[in-house]
């Protein structure tokens, strides 16, 4: 089973966002991780490959040259090869553009049964790229996959998370899955994995390498401005002689003052 995992680096979720000149201040984005949802996709892919006992996992990632370090972490987790898409034309891509680049790269990699990626990036929270990608590859997709019940020759049955439960989806393969956080915990790279990652095939491709004209990648979604959310003021600590008294006073405040119960 050959799997292509599309991953990207995102700022650590502990990042405190700052705004400068009406946009996110790049200086506040100083710690980078594998996008957590892409990490779930990697873990699922590793387990699928290892259960099948054959096949390879190719990481495909768009990012600046510095992203190489994060992509190597994916190799250290156990993926087999990586393709790093680096080009000035890839800076500031929106999901539509990113999907065009990924589709071109995936077609060049070729020979796969499954494309797996995170359902969204924890940076701009679009949750679109994997689905655009499926359409551009002419493949079915299943989004927010939490569990693979069965995967075999040309077909899979998977579960996706929806409000109040799971939808059980049957799909033909190849397909594109986007990962929601499921039952599997992404593994930490071992020391051996980290050392081995340095010797794994790692290619760097530009827009020209995947046959794309930068003019067709201009974002259609423009971020006009960014602000920080209004600060919440700390409210009041409800006091009382006993726990019961505090609880009664809180219930009263919620009904009479806040009017929410």
């Amino acid at each position, binding site marked *: 089973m050959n799997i292509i995992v599309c991953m990207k680096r995102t700022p650590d*979720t502990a*990042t405190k*966002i700052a*705004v400068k000149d009406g946009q*996110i201040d790049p200086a506040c984005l100083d710690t980078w991780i594998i996008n*957590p949802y892409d990490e779930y996709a990697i873990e699922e892919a590793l387990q699928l490959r290892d259960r099948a006992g054959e096949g390879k996992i190719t990481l495909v990632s768009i990012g600046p040259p510095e992203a190489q370090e994060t992509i190597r972490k994916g190799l250290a987790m156990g993926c087999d090869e990586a393709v790093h898409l680096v080009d000035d034309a890839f800076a500031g891509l*929106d*999901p*539509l553009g990113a999907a065009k680049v990924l589709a071109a790269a995936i077609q060049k990699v070729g020979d796969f049964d499954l494309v797996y990626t995170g359902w969204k990036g924890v940076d*701009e*929270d*679009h*949750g*679109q790229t994997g*689905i655009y990608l499926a359409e*551009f590859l002419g493949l*079915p997709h299943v989004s927010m996959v*939490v569990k693979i019940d069965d995967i075999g020759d040309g077909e899979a*049955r998977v579960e*996706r998370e*929806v*409000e*109040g*439960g*799971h*939808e*059980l*989806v*049957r799909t*033909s393969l190849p*397909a594109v899955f986007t990962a*929601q*956080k*499921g039952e599997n915990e992404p593994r930490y790279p071992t020391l051996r994995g980290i050392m081995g990652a340095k010797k794994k095939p790692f290619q760097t491709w530009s827009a020209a390498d995947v046959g794309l004209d930068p003019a067709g990648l201009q*974002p*259609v*979604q423009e*971020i*006009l401005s*960014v*602000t*920080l*959310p209004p600060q*919440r003021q*700390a*409210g*009041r*600590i*409800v006091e009382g002689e006993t*726990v*019961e008294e*505090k*609880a009664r006073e*809180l*219930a*009263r405040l*919620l009904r009479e003052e*806040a009017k*929410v*119960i």
Partner: protein
Amino acid sequence: MSTNNVLVVAEHLDGQLKRISFECVTAAAEIAGSLGGQVQAMVLGTSLPAALAEQLGQAGAQTVFTADDGSLQDYAPERFAQVVADTVRRADPAVVLFGATARGRDLAPRVAAKLGVGLASDCTGFAVKDGRLVITRPMYAGKAIAQVALQSSPQMATVRPNIFPPAEVAPDRQEATIEPVAVGEIAAGAVVEEFQAKGGDRPELTEANIIVSGGRGMGGPENYVVIEALADALGAAVGASRAAVDAGWRPHSDQVGQTGKTVSPSLYVACGISGAIQHLAGMRTSKVIVAINKDADAPIFKVADYGIVGDLFDVVPALREAIRELND
């Protein structure tokens, strides 16, 4: 050149329109008012009850496109997206809105891809400037708020639940024009075969009006009965922090925060949750926040409207009792 109309792709379950669809109609009416266009709606399914189109009309849609076909019984993204994309080409709206639900988040990007246009996700506000939308949407799970514009047409967006009030169904409103949509044979590789309910009768987290959440301070999965009892007294959903989910105490579907759900209920009760930045991002837009924590220095108190410093195992049952007394 498109029309100035705004099309809402409605969602229904068990023969009922979902609340989010009426919320989308409210957003659509605001936009259509500024553009000088109509509100339109679309429903897809098999043997659709006439009431669906009727109610969308009574909520404010002037035209309702109905795609009623045997092949639309079970959700299949490729097929549904093709039908919506064909209808969008025919109706030529300026704006297309979906709910930011599991369904809408799945369908909208596939439609946008078929049309080769951009899409703004999980939007919380719309303004019109020079005939184009200025869209408000959170990023970084709400740590930042962006104003975005889409350079492609139609302008497509998914609308976050619980932000816009649902449009009122007024039976005396003029009837909507029903436009049936012909559905041809469309191949689909992926098809939903079954729905498995999980989580019992409590409201769903992203749709809930009240949420009671438990974190690391819960100490173990068995202690959530305390949270559940308070939730049931309030008709609330149960949430959890990442610490509780990573410990295996609660399923991920309960997680509130940057790698979980972003929620905006009227009341959020955080029990034994310290208030890590990732958690605050996911719930800070709640109307009223209550914190119950034994650590008076916990960051959660800095965003809480009301706080009780104390052991949650004493405070939460006492609060449930106080609410019962209030309701009697």
